[in-house]
Each structure stands twice: as structure tokens, then as C-alpha cells.
């Protein structure tokens, strides 16, 4: 029976004025009953357009059908056949641009809450079968090194270990998870979930080596000499961009990467940790992506009274997930659209006192198809703030390219790969932000899976 209600079953959430003071998860997850009702909204259409929108081709109608029938573990197992991190994806994927964006129910109302159902299945499995012993995979005798324990590396390692490869993952930070632990905040993705996924991979036989910076501690070529027959590079996007405007090196200006790492990776919000953090009271976050939303919402939780998002285009073009913007607004973040910083101003001691901005209006569409923002003459004003967080994207890190012999870059400065994620060097594969520049968790996972298939093909020859 189809549930004809045109809107999604609402997600139970912490109240905005409560949650903006804690780091507990905002969305509390569907109950079994809610999940079944939501699953019954799925039309089980034959063409399943939702699946074409998914970078890892989750068998969406099949798993939803299982949930509708109350067979939750079966639903989870179906998701797991193509997606190694469902609890993560259900929480952080931009579903509105992917599966849910193509859902037929979305034509006359809201699409099926596919992300919420994916999360439900994963959480249900963890709660009911999470303690199950995982059998180590049987080795096929081939050794593969994965560089970077973020979404691309974890997805690649997961697929490879399932095929019998002996996988070792090298991670530069002291914790595994990449952007899932240093970037995305606890209130959006509890770190225990990431830790459980890593633990499951370990149980299958994947080895993790933290504190290992490939390119410095050891090079890709040395890994090959040590006996790895193939290497996957999934090192992420790297260096934060700044605007190159006056005052950016004043005290109180930092990158979102730095701000988020101090809070998420190094737990500056917990008193028992030593991590120092900028305790601003009025904070401007520059940028309109998910990273900007995360930084702004963290700032509010760290006790800032006023938190602004400064974005140069309008609410139509803002790239963050719809849900993040919705949550940020609810939590009291002040959005200043069509506004662009021209300089950061400070006092005689070098501390930030404000950010000078100019109003923008939208002109003709640019190369990206979005209307180009143009400055409104004489519209400059100063927003009084004591902290400025730059969340305007990242540049590619050159370390691996510089330290690996004859490894070729692509025209964007990332690592060059073909359709099978193979670089110009035999046996060396790459994927995720290290290739494309900053993108999404799920795209990185998709690239990791493509690379795993490419590596399997390469080593099966």
C-alpha cells in the first residue's frame, strides 16, 4: 500500500534553542514506525530514477521495499552491497541533488526521505547487530596501500578487502576518518559512527597506520618498493584558500579547516582537551558551502552571540545542502546574502574589529551558469565582528605530486586519472578531492570504489 501523504515524515530533532548550545546530534533519527510509514511513500517505480542520481548506485527501491515490510536488517544488507558507509551517507549526502532530486514523488510534493531511510537502516543495524563478529576476509595474497583514511580511502579499502586484498591505509593525522572526523561536526555526524566503520574494516583485516605523511615520512615510490603492488591516493583537497584581501592575517582570522579541526578533531568544545580555540563573540563566516554552515553552527555552539554567513550571491545560488541552511537559520545564524568582504579591519594590537563588505547584485550568468555577482557602487559598510572564518574552498595539495616520480597532474592541478581512476603511473590510482578539488563525501566514496575496481582489474591481469 502506498502512503499518499505528500510530505516527508518529519525528522525528530533537538529544538533549535537547545541544540545550538550543545554538540549532540541535531537529527535524532526515525523510529521503526516512522521509517515504515516513510518507506511506504515510495512508488517502487520501474525506472528507479533515484539510483541514477547516486554516485555509488545504492539499490534504493529494493532497500526501501524491505523497510516498508519491516525487514530492516535485509534493507541494511542491500545498501551495504554498494555503499560501505551508509550511516555516514544517510547523514551527510546532498540528497536533494542526487537520489531525492530525481524521485518521482518530488514532482507533486516532497521526495521520499531516502537519506533518512538509509540512515535508519544503518542505525538499526548498529543497534541490533552492531556487536556481531566480523569474519576477516580471506587473503588473495596481493598487497595494496591506500593513502588517506577519509571517505575515498575508506570506500576503496572496504571494496578491496572484500575482494581479498591485503590493504594498509596510511593516514597523516592521529585519527582515521579524514574530513569525517576533522571537518564535519559531531552534531551532524557523531564520531562514534566513523570509529565503528573503521573498526569494522579493521576486523575484516584492513591495517591502519596513523601519523604517516606520505610524501614526507614515506613516498609513494617507496611504498611500491616495499612490496605494495598498487597504491590508491585519496589525500583530499588540502590547502585552504583565502580571499587575498587586506587584513586577512589579523588576529582572529582563520580558515574553516583550522576552526573545524580544533573543534572536531581536537575537541576544543570539551573541557578535558587542551586545544586552544578562538572564543569570538561576533563571528563572520565567509562562504556558502556546507563547510561554512558547519563553521557557523559550531561558532554558535562555542558561545558566540552573533554569527553571520557572508555570501556574495543570493539564496538561490547558495551551494550548501538545503537541510544545513534550514538548520542554521533555525539556530539563529544571520545570513547576509549578496554581500562580499573587501577587507578585514583591526585595532592597533592587530585584533579583528570588523569586516568591511560591499553589497552585490546579480548580473549576467557566468561560466558556471549562475548569475555573476557585481558590486553595488558606494554600498560599503562595516560589520562589527571579532573573528572571521574563511570558508571559501581549498586549493590542491602538491605534496604527493612533488614527491612521486613522473606522476602527472590534471589541468586543475589535481592528480591526473582516467575513467578507471588510474594515473599515468602503472599501479598508482587516485580519487576524491585529490583529483577533483573540493567536492562531496559521496563523490569521494564513489571515486574510491571506481579505483578499487580499477586496482582489482589491474592486479587480476
Amino acid at each position, binding site marked *: 500500500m502506498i502512503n499518499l501523504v505528500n510530505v516527508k515524515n518529519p525528522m525528530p530533532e533537538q529544538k533549535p534553542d537547545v541544540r545550538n548550545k550543545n554538540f549532540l546530534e541535531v537529527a535524532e533519527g526515525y523510529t521503526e514506525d516512522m521509517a515504515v510509514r516513510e518507506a511506504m511513500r515510495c512508488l517502487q517505480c520501474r525506472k528507479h530514477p533515484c539510483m541514477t542520481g547516486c554516485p555509488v548506485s545504492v539499490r534504493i527501491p529494493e532497500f526501501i521495499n524491505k523497510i516498508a515490510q519491516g525487514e530492516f536488517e535485509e534493507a541494511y544488507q542491500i545498501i551495504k552491497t554498494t555503499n560501505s558507509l551508509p550511516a555516514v551517507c544517510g547523514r551527510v549526502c546532498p540528497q536533494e541533488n542526487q537520489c531525492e532530486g530525481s524521485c518521482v514523488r518530488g514532482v507533486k510534493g516532497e521526495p521520499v526521505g531516502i537519506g533518512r531511510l538509509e540512515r535508519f537502516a544503518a542505525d538499526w543495524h548498529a543497534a541490533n547487530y552492531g556487536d556481531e563478529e566480523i569474519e576477516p576476509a580471506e587473503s588473495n595474497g596481493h598487497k595494496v596501500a591506500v593513502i588517506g583514511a577519509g571517505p575515498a580511502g575508506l570506500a576503496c579499502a572496504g571494496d578491496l578487502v572484500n575482494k581479498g586484498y591485503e590493504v594498509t591505509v596510511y593516514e*597523516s*593525522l*592521529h585519527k582515521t576518518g579524514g574530513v569525517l572526523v*576533522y571537518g564535519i561536526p559531531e552534531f551532524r555526524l557523531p564520531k562514534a559512527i566513523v570509529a565503528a566503520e573503521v573498526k569494522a574494516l579493521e576486523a575484516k583485516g584492513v591495517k591502519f597506520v*596513523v*601519523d*604517516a*605523511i606520505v610524501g*614526507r*615520512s*614515506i613516498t609513494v615510490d617507496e611504498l611500491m618498493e616495499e612490496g605494495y603492488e598498487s597504491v590508491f591516493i585519496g589525500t*583530499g583537497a*588540502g*590547502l*585552504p584558500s*583565502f580571499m*587575498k584581501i587586506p587584513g*586577512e*592575517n589579523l*588576529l*582572529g582570522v*582563520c*580558515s574553516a*579547516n*583550522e576552526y573545524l*579541526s*580544533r573543534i572536531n*578533531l*581536537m575537541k576544543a568544545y570539551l573541557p*578535558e*582537551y*587542551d*586545544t*586552544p580555540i*578562538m572564543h569570538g563573540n561576533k563571528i563572520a563566516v565567509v562562504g556558502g558551502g556546507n563547510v561554512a554552515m558547519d563553521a557557523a553552527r559550531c561558532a554558535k555552539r562555542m558561545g558566540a552571540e552573533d554569527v553571520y554567513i557572508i555570501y556574495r550571491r543570493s539564496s538561490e545560488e547558495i551551494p550548501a545542502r538545503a537541510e544545513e541552511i534550514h538548520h542554521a537559520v533555525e539556530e539563529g545564524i544571520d545570513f547576509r546574502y549578496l554581500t562580499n568582504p573587501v577587507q578585514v579591519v583591526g585595532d592597533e*594590537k*592587530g585584533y579583528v574589529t570588523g569586516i568591511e563588505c560591499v553589497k552585490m547584485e546579480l548580473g549576467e550568468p557566468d561560466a558556471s551558469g549562475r548569475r555573476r555577482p557585481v558590486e553595488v557602487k558606494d554600498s560599503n559598510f562595516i560589520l562589527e565582528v571579532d573573528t572571521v572564518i574563511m570558508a571559501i574552498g581549498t586549493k590542491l*595539495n602538491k*605534496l604527493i605530486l612533488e614527491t612521486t616520480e613522473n606522476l602527472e597532474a590534471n589541468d586543475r592541478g589535481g592528480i591526473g586519472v582516467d575513467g578507471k581512476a588510474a594515473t599515468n603511473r602503472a599501479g598508482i590510482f587516485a580519487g576524491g578531492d585529490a583529483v577533483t578539488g573540493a567536492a562531496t563525501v559521496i563523490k569521494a566514496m564513489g571515486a574510491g570504489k571506481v579505483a578499487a575496481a580499477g586496482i582489482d582489474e589491474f592486479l587480476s591481469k
Partner: protein
Amino acid sequence: MKMYEILSKRKLNDNITWLVIYAPMVARKAKPGQFIILRTDEYGERIPLTMAGHNSENGTIDLIYATVGRTTMLMDQLEEGDTFANIVGPLGKPTHMEGLKKVCVVGGGTGNALAYPIAAGMHNHGIKVDMIAGFKNKDLVILEEEFTANTDRTFVVTDDGSYKEKAFTTDKLKALLAEGNEYDEIIAVGPPIMMKLICQIAQEAGIKSVASLTAYMIDGTGMCGGCRASIGGEDKFVCVDGPEFDGSLVDWDELIQRNSYYSEQEAHDREHVCRLTGGVRYYD
């Protein structure tokens, strides 16, 4: 041996300690001028420290640190046999040595600990090295024997004249230049204000200067951007573009200002460590 185990701990004076630590991944690739990032334990912050030396065969690295903040106070609590939670490296670009024939290395205070591997490394590389090691007073003098054994000439100077020659490092450098000593490069390692002045003297003498900068950083791979410094009007990251830069291009006033950002929190933390725990965090 356990990973990141302290194999030896030696007090050089009341405030400065020399540790030898088992860290084979770092030691196998380490070069003079490079640094590591460490964490004492799960609750510790990540702090960068330039290596004072390494032994690739034994898999050990040397750290010489001054007790100045919360993390170094916690490091004081660790004894031989204890381990650090994490040590990652080697980070940064090694000291540039190609084409150099004669240099002067100038170290100030604790900076001498970091100047030592640079001076010794250059000396071992066949470069003639004059070392000026400056200290506030006699009690703070460190590494005199090591410098003497691993450089061509070592000049120990103290601000108050309580040991060897009474002079600031700047005075001594000027004197050496006035005597007609010629250098291909002058390398400054110490407090930013000293490095600024040394680099100015070098510039006036028409000699290339190199300064080893320290900055706040998290990952050490360029990801956080916290360590950015203005070098010749451009933003550079100390962790990946440095830590050594052309001293004539460094915006010293900005660097000094940026390095003070967390000083209030750090002062508070120091007191917190002392008052609440007496400096001790309990290790397993």
C-alpha cells in the same frame, strides 16, 4: 622498544630538556631543519617542534624543548620509558645547503637547540660554519660542547657577561663582519625579534639571510592554514613552504603579532595545569 618511547631524558638547564625518542618512521627520512608535530596524550594539543637531531639507524629523533606552555609542562612529567601519543614527521623543507661554502649560524636562547642540527648538519656537509650562540646569562647556556665539536668556530655570548663574552648576538655578528669575515649566508634561529635584527644586519652587509620560523599549526601538511606568514608580500604556509625563509622577505611585525594570538589562553592554561593538577596528568 615502544613507539614514541622516551629512551633518554636529560635536563640541559632548569628550563631546557633533551629527549631522545623512538620514532623510526620520522628518523628514517629526517634532515636538518625539519620538524615534527607531537601530542602528549589523547587530550593534548598538537604542537610543532624542530628536531634537534636524529639517528636513522636506531630509529630515534632528538627533541630539545624549553618549558614554556601547557604541553611542554606535560612533557616534563614524562620520564624515560614513557611514550608520546603521537609524533608525525619529518615535516617542512630541509635546510638548504647546496652551493654554500661558508655560513654564520646565529642562535638565541632556546633557538640554539634548533640551530644546533642546522649548524652541525652544514658542518658535516663540508660547509665552514661560524656559530654565534647567545644566551641571557650563564645559567641558560646549553650545548656549548656540541657546538664546539661540530662547527669551525663557536662564539658563546651572554647578555649580562656572566659567561664568556658579554654581547648580544647582533653585536657579535656585526663584530665578525667588521673583522672581515665573509659569509654566503647567515642563518638566524631564535626569538622573532632577534631574527628580525640579525636579518637586517645581513641585509645591510649584502648577505643572504635565512630565518627558521615557528607558528601555530595543526596538521603540518598545509590543511589548516594557521601558520600562514607574509613572505615578500605573499601568504606562505610555514609548515609546507618553510620553516626556513629568506629573512629579508619576512614580515616580522606580523609574525610576532600572530604568534601572540593564544598567549592569554596559554597563560590561563599554565596556571590551570599548576593549580588543578600540580602539573601532573596521570598516564597509564
